[in-house]
């Protein structure tokens, strides 16, 4: 599974899933902490729709962690103050970069969580669609 998709599932989904996957790796491999979870900033680059040019919208507070498994460095980055999740994401990232055998069995769990998230989103969208205006043309 590609990183963009996986990180969205792990960040938007139940943080227990990231904790479980990271725990599995920590149990079997030595994980060296390079950067303990810390707070920092990410500047958001945005495209505006009037002239299609770029500008900076502002910064977002993030928590970042870095670990090493063997020769592979993993990075965990998440918006907000979420130290435990950032640490777990870093371990998962390093495990994926290293191609550890455990990662091969993660797809089913991640996909199940993705389905749960999509279901939640569809419910949320249905709730928002209740606020959609149905215009009636007034008769003379």
């Amino acid at each position, binding site marked *: 599974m590609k990183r963009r*998709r996986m990180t969205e599932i792990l960040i938007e989904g139940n943080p227990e899933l990231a904790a479980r996957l990271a725990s599995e790796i920590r149990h079997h491999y030595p994980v060296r902490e390079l950067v303990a979870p810390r707070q920092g*900033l990410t500047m*958001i680059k945005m495209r505006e729709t009037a002239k299609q040019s*770029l*500008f*900076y919208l502002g*910064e977002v507070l993030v928590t970042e962690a870095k670990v090493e498994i063997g020769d592979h460095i993993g990075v965990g980055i998440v918006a907000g103050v979420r130290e435990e999740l950032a640490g777990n994401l870093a371990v998962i990232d390093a495990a994926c970069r290293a191609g550890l055998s455990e990662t091969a069995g993660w797809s089913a769990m991640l996909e199940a969580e993705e389905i749960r998230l999509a279901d939640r989103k569809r419910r949320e969208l249905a709730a*928002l669609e209740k*606020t959609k205006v149905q215009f009636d043309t007034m008769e003379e």
Partner: protein
Amino acid sequence: MGYVAVKGGTEAIEASIDRLKYERLKGGKQVEVSAILSSMRLLIDQVMSEASLYSPELAALAIKQAEGSMEEAVFLLRAHRSTLPRLYYSETVEPERMAVERRISASFKDIPGGQLLGATHDYTHRLIDFSLLDEKEEERNQWMEQYEAELSALEKATGDGTYPKVVEYLRNEGLFESFEPDNTEPDDVTKNVFQFPASRSERLQILTRGQTGAVTALGYASLRGYGQVHPTVGEVRVGQLPITIPAHGGEDEDDSYYIGSVRATEVESFVPMPSKGPDGKQELRFEIGYGICYGQNETKAIAMSILDQCLEHPGSDAPPHDEEFVLTHVDTVESTGFISHLKMPHYVTFQSKLDSVRNTRKGRDGHES
């Protein structure tokens, strides 16, 4: 009279800070940060927007510490931000990827995808709701349970929460000029002091982090005639913008890191402008004023779209078209800081002014006598 250096006041300052704490605590009831986070959504949005730092948790804490003062809360966040390292720059956020929670158009009744009201105070009676004085937890829970039960009974939606932009349909009709994506790296006013004339990226960055009241006042001034822009709102949307960070050395978008999303309000205002047609004759075409800010703050985003359009046309003598006038006066920390500094000791400055006034009067009185 010579200068005299003075010092002192340390004990008075310490006592003053104790007094400040006393004022915050003396009521005997304290609001938890979690309660601010849960119930002061729009206040948090405004603080984050003016601080140019998206962090609901820190904004809620700053609001508590500042006893609800906007300018203090924004100052606290800006100060805290300056202590943190900037670790990353995001990939370009494309606005059409916003997961829309609210979306309306004042220009067209029927827009592709429809008008989605979402959560808004627009259609509420502006009457004080005295029932909130004694809002019972049990009643709240009951309302929530009932509302959630109604929602769970709804048929699930099929879309992904994104909507087409109204302006794209008009561009396809040739009523608006189309632009190719311009990927020129933006300037950053937090890294370099900007100079006039400012670049478009600097203007947008300053306006989006501007004080809500200041941006609104200057946009309003243009509507009232101190400016030449009176637009029709093409689209206002509020929603979540997904944020991603590129993987080190990676070009593949699928390989980037998703880090979360930020809620923002985005506005495109339509402004008719005279221009020359292909036959050289004068005709009207539409231009777009662009506004955006963190959180849900539609007044600020609409006002920003007016000022964006004003600053694109600096020919007018009206103040909202003067970028030096607009850009140097809309920042919360700069304006409140400069006004507040007048409270600081100016003993020597004032003594000098006093001497001048006395000497002038002495001279005049002497001449008259």
